């Protein structure tokens, strides 16, 4: 097994799926010769040629609209939108068609495409390059919304996303692209979409997070244990939509407490849905209101203030302690 960054692990997933299945093709701005601005598709044009790794004109609606056509014809396009902040240019293609063609054609067509895009903050970026707006996509029936949190699960989820018969929006936490390495096996490994994983056991508190919020959540869990003797059970959502809280509700029945963490804005964010589901599935086990540690409901500030905006381990520790104390 090789130690890989998330960028390398995603590259491995794309390469192997392209080797196995000639229906898989990549398209996007700067994905070919440049290998993508973050190098996720580095070297793939040399290996598979410019017909399969397509540098497109600068047009997101064009990329996604064309990918829908390819998918309907039987290909498995993987689109890269350079930053999630530019997916609004293609939003109508997702909402009006990718998400609906299966239904509109009453099952004759389906759209097995993946839209990859780096998302999230913490990298001292320009405007439009730091947002976490996964809720838009999670809110759209017909789409799946996936967010990995490390090299190994990003690879395994990408394989599933490519093979999935329905359109998958795959947001990559860009602050984790090169943040750490993990062993990633060369042989195939897949993780099912729609199933959260428990990444830490604990009996006092259920903590739910995903994407770039996993490292601070684990850091907080560690600090809570060593400084306060609080045992936190941490769940990594991995798939935002379709959301399955079965395991999380089970955990809440044990701990009686939950905190949800995301970079995304609080109001109408994924945390709101998780809380609602917990109300439905574990209300009588909750001993305190569920707390959210999230981005604030404002335009993401330019980077001089992003540390004050972004949830961090300290904020998570406080939220857990307050929830347990209430």
């Amino acid at each position: 097994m090789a130690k890989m960054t998330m960028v390398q692990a995603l590259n491995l997933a794309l390469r192997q799926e392209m080797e196995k299945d000639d229906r898989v093709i990549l398209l996007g701005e700067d994905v070919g010769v440049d290998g993508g601005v973050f190098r996720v598709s580095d070297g793939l044009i040399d290996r598979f040629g410019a017909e399969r790794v397509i540098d497109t004109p600068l047009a997101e609606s064009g990329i996604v609209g064309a990918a829908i056509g390819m998918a309907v014809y039987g290909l498995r396009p993987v689109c890269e939108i350079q930053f999630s902040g530019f997916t609004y240019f293609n939003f109508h293609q997702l909402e009006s068609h990718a998400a609906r063609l299966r239904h509109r054609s009453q099952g004759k067509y389906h759209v097995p495409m993946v839209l990859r895009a780096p998302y999230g903050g913490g990298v001292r970026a320009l405007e439009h390059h730091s947002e976490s707006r996964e809720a838009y996509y999670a809110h759209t029936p017909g789409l799946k919304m996936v967010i990995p949190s490390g090299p190994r699960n990003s690879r395994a989820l990408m394989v599933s996303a490519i093979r999935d018969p329905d359109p998958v929006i795959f947001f990559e936490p860009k602050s984790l692209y090169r943040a750490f390495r993990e062993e990633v096996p060369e042989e195939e490994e897949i993780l099912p979409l729609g199933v959260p994983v428990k990444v830490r056991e604990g009996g006092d508190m259920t903590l739910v997070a995903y994407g770039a919020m996993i490292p601070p959540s684990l850091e907080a869990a560690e600090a809570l244990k060593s400084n306060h003797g609080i045992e936190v059970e941490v769940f990594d959502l991995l798939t935002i939509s379709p959301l399955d809280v079965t395991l999380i509700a089970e955990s809440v029945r044990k701990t009686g407490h939950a905190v949800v963490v995301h970079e995304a804005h609080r109001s109408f964010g994924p945390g709101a849905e998780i809380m609602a589901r917990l109300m439905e599935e574990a209300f009588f086990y909750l001993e305190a209101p569920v707390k959210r540690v999230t981005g604030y409901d404002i335009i993401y500030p330019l980077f001089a203030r992003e540390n004050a905006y972004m949830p961090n381990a300290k904020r998570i520790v406080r939220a857990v302690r307050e929830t347990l104390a209430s």
Partner: protein
Amino acid sequence: MPKTPLPFSHQSEYLSILDENGNVDKALEPELPEEFLLKLYWYMLLGRRFDERMLNLQRQGRIGTFPPLIGQEASQLGAVAALKPSDWMAPAFREALAEIWRGKSMENTILYYAGYDEGGVIEKSRNDLPLAIPVSSQTLHAVGIAMAIKYRGQPDVAMTFFGDGATSEGDFHEALNFAGVFQVPVIFVCQNNQWAISTPLAKQTRSETIAQKAASYGFPGIQVDGNDILAVYSASLKAIERARSGEGPSLIECLTYRMGLHTTADDPTKYRDNKEVKMWESRDPISRFRTYLLNKGVLSNKKSQQYEEEIKTEIQGVVERSEELMTELGAPEDMFAHQYDELPPHLLRQREEMLDQWRLDQEEEKHG
């Protein structure tokens, strides 16, 4: 039912007045006052030196990512220099020099790229939109401004900048189509610097020129040597006068070159041949303009040197002042400013929460 050629009558022109050696076409040379020529030269030089300094600051970690404009001084300055202050301008993101000419303070440019939202402020003196990063989106805003100008019967025009890559977006098409249909006073200025990150023009469009695209929307397009400030200025002035007199929109394609990086996060050696860069170096917009001014007797080497000194001092002052400003700015609660006309109750609460959390973060960091 014959088969006949369509009466497609548009002809696009190419305009060059000052060649790369600084030789001028006397018949086309615009008559411009000496002070104005010198002012153009001063600003071009300022744009170049400021860009170099920004790159330097970025490399030292004193500012964040920014898009250098080196090589495109003439193609942006020539266009805005033909505007009146009361006109409107909607830039993309590589027009720092055009913005500075229009009255943006360099301190604000630095603040913006150092991550302070305050740097985005639009000074009272100018009718400009803030820079727009979503490629081509601003072209529609310029059209809307021009529609409003027409509705109000004002004598103003709107000018918008965008790159060659931007011409692939749907927004660009919609903007040109609106402009053509509504015949509004807007000038589209394409900074055709041959590249959109790693994508060369040839992969962006099969059209031989960007100028010709205007024809399909029913208005004139012209291609100019974008490194020739006299050509850019002359073409812009003509388009502006046309717009002002109610004759509708125009498109100006400035043929130029992105001499530097796409942004400071980019590595062009991955996708382009340095020979191409070298070739464009010999077409530098500033050196040919200097030669022209020297030959014309408007500028002397001594004066040029004096300008360099002045600019160096000015930029040094700007950097010092902006870094001083940074020590005063940065109160985290200001991130809640300018969200709405009035901050709704839940955001007032979130602002308090944010401050509490931030203070606790600071304390914990201090006490370990």
